[in-house]
């Protein structure tokens, strides 16, 4: 597995995309902090951009890369190698490269420009979202034979999580506003990894609003260390479940 990991990582390092991703994130982060005279505002704008962009790029790049590496994968598959080790190495290498890009491109400058818990949380959220959407991308790439279809599906999944799910959630709130649905909102929001990341950041930045009204419930739930651990566990589940399904599909895949 580590050999596969090593060679995939070397290949990714040669790939211009990962470097480009790092530079893009660096440019966005530095640019926003230069443009805004209030660092909090820059941090908030940045959190909106990152929480949308990181999942998109991770998902699409994972899909595209795995399609492009299909011949290499097939070559490996004919070797006396356990299939889960092939995918394990590739997935780990992809995650490493993208996570490094996110942490060095956005996380590090964030902590330099705006040191504090909020930046740390945002960096952590970006890191976890990278892992989640790389795993989802891998699952899509393995399940679908056609590249165009895979990329399209990746876009749809991203769109679902970044926008449609929130719209559905808002609709649920409206539709059931006569019922005591408050306790259900947090678990429902936790079903969307992007929302989880956003709420984690929100609780660090918009704490004043979070203390009010039903915000106090969220504050109670996510505000302390236990809450952060719960959120992290939910995100870890978002990595584990798609990965497990992907491994299962990969084992049975007929190339």
């Amino acid at each position: 597995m580590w050999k596969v990991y090593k060679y995939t990582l070397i290949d990714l390092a040669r790939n211009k995309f990962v470097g480009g991703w790092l530079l893009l994130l660096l440019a966005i982060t530095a640019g926003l902090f230069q443009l805004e005279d209030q660092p909090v505002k820059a941090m908030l704008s940045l959190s909106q951009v990152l929480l949308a962009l990181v999942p998109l790029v991770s998902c699409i790049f994972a899909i595209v890369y795995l399609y492009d590496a299909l011949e290499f994968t097939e070559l490996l598959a004919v070797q006396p190698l356990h299939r889960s080790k092939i995918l394990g190495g590739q997935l780990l290498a992809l995650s490493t490269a993208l996570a490094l890009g996110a942490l060095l491109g956005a996380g590090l400058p964030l902590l330099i420009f705006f040191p504090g818990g909020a930046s740390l949380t945002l960096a952590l959220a970006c890191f976890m979202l990278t892992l989640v959407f790389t795993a989802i991308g891998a699952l899509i790439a393995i399940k679908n034979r056609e590249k165009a279809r895979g990329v399209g599906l990746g876009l749809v999944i991203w769109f679902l999580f970044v926008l449609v799910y929130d719209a559905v959630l808002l609709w649920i709130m409206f539709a059931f506003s006569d019922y005591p649905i408050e306790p259900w909102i947090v678990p429902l929001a936790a079903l969307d990894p992007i929302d989880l990341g956003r709420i984690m950041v929100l609780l660090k930045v918009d704490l004043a609003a979070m203390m009010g009204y039903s915000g106090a419930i969220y504050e109670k739930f996510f505000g302390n260390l236990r809450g952060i651990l719960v959120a992290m566990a939910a995100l870890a589940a978002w990595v584990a479940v798609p990965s497990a399904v992907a491994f299962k599909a990969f084992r049975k895949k007929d190339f």
Partner: protein
Amino acid sequence: MRLARPLRPLAALLAVAWATGPLAAKTWTVGPAAPNGKLAAAVASAAPKDTIRVLQGTYAEGTVRINKPLTILGTGMPLIDGRGEGDVLEITASDVTIRGLRITGTKISNINDNAGIKVIAADRVQLTGNQLLRCFFAIHLSKARNPLIEGNTITGDPALPESQRANGVHLWQCTGASIINNTITDHRDGIYFEFVTDSHINGNTSLRNNRYGLHFMFSNRDSYAHNLFQHNGAGVAVMYSKEVDMRHNSFISNRGASAYGILFKEINDVTIDSNRFTDNTTAMLVDGCNRMEAKGNEFRSNGWAVRLFSNATACNFSANTFAGNTFDLATNGNPVYNTFNGNYWDRYQGYDLDRNGTGDVPFRPLSLFAMVNERMPYAVVLSRSLLTSLMDQAERLIPSMTPEGLADDKPLMRPPHGKSHL
């Protein structure tokens, strides 16, 4: 002091009489070693206008009643202990001055409203530079005219529940009070006014009181300036009053579901100028107010900067700074009889082509998401998501749900006072 020329000989004559005659005020000294050791005994034997000097030490004498105009001065902060019998000092005479005492040991009683220093129907009482420790009420004045309460340090017991706490400075039916440079912590309400008129509250600090930092009702023509209200359970509440003037106060970190930087309820003719609101759950709640001028205030990093109920009329907001708030404005209806003009909004995305310092397109402070959130508070979980940003953008381009008339037509491009003016 300069006296008018015809009065000078008279003044000189009076001074001589004062120094030599039987009218001369006597100074009594009370100390652990002094023959007349007890404070209560000294008060009993002193004549009106006398001075009692209290030396360093502990005087655990129960309630001391002061029923004649005396000046009581502490040297080295002597401790006056009421031994939990009731009030500690009870003042029923005018022109009493209490300075430099440490006072503790009131009885907790909601029937008698026991206080460290209680003043009943006395005028021109001066309470300065005292320390009040773990009292039930600390300073309690009723029907007092022109009292001065200055430079006192009032500290409650942070371990007590609200039912066993009372107010730091409590005034009922007073007029012409000056409350200056006091520090009040860990009481129920820091400063409480009911039926108090023509008074000045300057430079006080009210911290960690578990209800309101400042609470006043039915108190007209009062002014509040340069006070700090921080970490109070419910912030500051101002109710049923007229002609209130509040300037240069700071309202900081008053957090909780029903905590407000300042809560205005049924207030008429208010000026609220150059105050600072930071890190509050709701910085300012305006409920049923008429003719309020809010200008030059700074709202930063609050959950809700202004919650303006639609029963408010003629409330004008100008030259205020709104920055870093989760919601700049929220309302329960259509507050069109109020105006926003020439404020700085950090959310403003317009342009200033003619370079006159104000934006060329109006700013709508009431976002669609704020309205949604008003109906369903739990929707706050969706704030700063892509969905709500898109909703707000769409609403700003084509307003359909938010009130048409509620806009700042001349939003400032820069904060009126630079980054921070306070």
